[in-house]
């Protein structure tokens, strides 16, 4: 991996921050600012996917699971905050006499909720990742396993209607940690928090990429056996990347709830998890800004093109997958590099590295 000068990345993050935190609130209507907030949540998850998949070579197809942990932790807290002393309305519907499910109780506490948003994905990802990476599960197996996990969790939530709200999901939150959510000023604040978290995640990932760990991660992706022979345990390297990406998905999920105002199993299932991948692939899986920009672009496409031309949007999304993966495996962010590389030296493209790693994985 070529190393660009730090000030380029840093000023990129700075530009991103100015655009999201200062320019966007000034030029966008409340509705579009809120939509941008939603895309930012997906972008936070996408940054994590970029780390695990782009740099680590692990195709995480079940990020919905971790998105769900953050989202449902937050949603349970907000539901309880709205309901006050009463049992949430949807529970009354199915069994008016039963008490609040036990696992809901701790989410009354703000501290526990925030801790859960961070700790739950870390715990799940480390135990799952440990088992998988130590046994050298990778490539397509890893992808399908994580995807199956997302399907299983979405089905579980759909079928536990009294405990989780089922297919309808959790919605109608009135307050966000004491702030009235209907107030446009508070909605802007929630947006700003999400945007700021995205910047923080970008910054954190940039630091990771520049560190020794980042180099080890790319080395593991490109030649796992060589890393092993050099005395490192590739499983540990992958584990860290996987856990960080899970944490980011969870943070994205947690912010999704106050911004969108509803969370349902469909937002975490197979299709949603794949849509998160779409943004990353589109923007450029291995680049710093690609995943976030791609996620925002796909989100925007869904809101605007999906609106004016719903049938067409599905075709466009399908074609996007095909064309980008086929012709631009490193996404749109590789376009400028390709352009300059073609002019200067043709050997600066990172693409062949990915190819080598996947070829290795394809062999049974």
């Amino acid at each position, binding site marked *: 991996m070529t190393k660009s000068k730090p000030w380029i990345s840093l000023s990129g993050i700075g530009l991103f921050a100015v655009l999201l935190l200062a320019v966007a609130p000034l030029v966008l209507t409340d509705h579009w600012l809120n939509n941008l907030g939603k895309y930012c949540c997906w972008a936070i998850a996408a940054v994590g996917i970029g780390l695990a998949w782009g740099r680590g070579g692990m195709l995480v197809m079940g990020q919905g699971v971790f998105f769900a942990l953050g989202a449902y932790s937050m949603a349970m807290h907000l539901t309880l905050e709205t309901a006050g002393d*009463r049992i949430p309305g949807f529970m*009354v519907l199915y069994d*008016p006499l039963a008490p609040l499910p036990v696992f809901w109780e701790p989410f009354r506490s703000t501290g526990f909720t925030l801790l859960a948003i961070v700790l739950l994905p870390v715990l799940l990802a480390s135990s799952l990742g440990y088992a998988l990476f130590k046994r050298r599960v990778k490539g397509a197996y890893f992808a399908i396993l994580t995807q199956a996990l997302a399907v299983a969790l979405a089905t579980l939530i*759909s079928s536990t209607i009294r405990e989780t709200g089922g297919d309808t999901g959790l919605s109608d939150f009135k307050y966000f940690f004491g702030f009235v959510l209907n*107030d446009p000023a508070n909605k802007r604040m929630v947006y700003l*928090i999400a945007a700021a978290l995205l910047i923080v995640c970008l910054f954190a990932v940039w630091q990771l990429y520049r560190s020794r760990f980042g180099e080890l991660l790319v080395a593991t992706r490109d030649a796992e056996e060589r890393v092993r022979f050099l005395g490192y345990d590739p499983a540990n390297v992958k584990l860290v990347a996987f856990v960080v990406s899970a944490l980011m998905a969870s943070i994205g999920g947690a912010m999704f709830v106050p911004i969108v105002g509803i969370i349902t199993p469909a937002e975490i299932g197979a299709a949603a998890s794949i849509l998160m991948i779409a943004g990353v692939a589109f923007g450029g899986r291995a680049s710093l800004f690609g995943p976030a920009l791609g996620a925002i672009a796909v989100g925007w496409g869904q809101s605007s093109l*999906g609106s004016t031309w719903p049938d067409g949007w599905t075709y466009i999304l399908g074609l996007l997958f095909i064309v980008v993966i086929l012709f631009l495996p490193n996404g749109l962010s590789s376009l400028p590099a390709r352009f300059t590389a073609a002019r200067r030296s043709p050997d600066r493209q990172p693409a062949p590295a990915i190819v080598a790693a996947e070829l290795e994985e394809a062999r049974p």
Partner: protein
Amino acid sequence: MSTTSKRLRTLTAMGAVGTTVLVLAGCGARAGDETAGSRTSAAPSCVDTSGDTIKLGFLNSLTGGMAISEKTVSNVLHMGADEINAAGGILGKKIAYVQEDGATDWPTFAEKTEKLLTQDCVAAIFGGWTSSSRKAVKPVVEKHNGLFFYPVQYEGLESSPNIYYTGATTNQQIIPAMDFLASRGVKKLFLAGSDYVFPRTANAIIKLYAAKLGIEIVGEEYVPLDKDDWTSQVAKIVAAKPDFIFNTINGSSNVGFIKAYYDAGLTAGTTPIISVSIAEEEAPAMGHEVTGHYASWNYFQSLKTDTNPKFIESWKAYPNSSGVTSDPMEAAYISLYLYKALVEAAGSFDVDAVNAAAKKNTITFDAPEGKVTLDGDNHHISKPGHIGQINSNNQFDIAWASDKFIEPDPYLESYDWFPADIRKQLVDAAG
């Protein structure tokens, strides 16, 4: 680069970002400070009534799993709008509709509702199918004080000043169906449903009423909405030996259920099914296996009313027609005309004026199912109860009809078997 300087830089950057956020935020309303919060914060309506057109929003899933059902509703709304425009529009203004795709995704329904209300500035929104989509729309229309017309039968126990329900509530569909079963002398009933809010709630109500009617519930099965395979559950039905099945399955899963049922040797002759989600639209996809079973609806294509032939004819002539009419389609058709009647009674497109006009309880419409009256308090309409039996042309022969129109009672207040404490809790939770 040394680690300390790196860390220092990280901290500075994060600190800067954090401060920015706090400076920019922190001016909104807090809990308890309700004057600045909730209702009053709804921006004044941006609906433009100055021109000679009025904007309405149609919100249906045109992609994803529910497009199977919702595309037709969208088409019938277009037909209704064309009809109204040809007859001079609403208050002399032609309808200019904005069609949005809910994409079978409940957060998308919420997002598009907000878009329709605040960006397109529509006067009212029509659409939705699943209860989940309605529950996603509800907080948004309430927040922006908009109007939403929902055209599908549902589980009741809900009311909102911003929603009008033109499909049946439980006492217009589920309860008539149970009365029909009781009149047939059914003693053992099996409940089969999809795993989501409507079947779960409907079955909770069915169980309460069954106890009163002396009908024993011999089993209850749920399968996820997107699963077609019912063989395991049908094996349980065979073992439970019920007299009748109450079917609250929705969508394509019904096809799998009906096929597995037929395969197991259960027929309409021995153990009939009564469904609340199989209509003229759905029946053809199930083949001959569904013939002879029952469905409870308010409208059937085979109904002999004055207005029905015209409705069927216009639909058959409509470009995107599927050729048959069904209850949800008719309810969607009603919703447009009901809105027209409401606006014309109010003399205004203003939401509060429309609601005030509704309160007079004088709004009626000569619907294909008969003359329906709007209940201004609960925003539902009176409907006739009908049970139809599916014939080999996938049309319904009327097997039972209520003797008069049934007044809507979403909270089942006139039914003593529905526990008052549950009702109170539900109303409290909703408020």
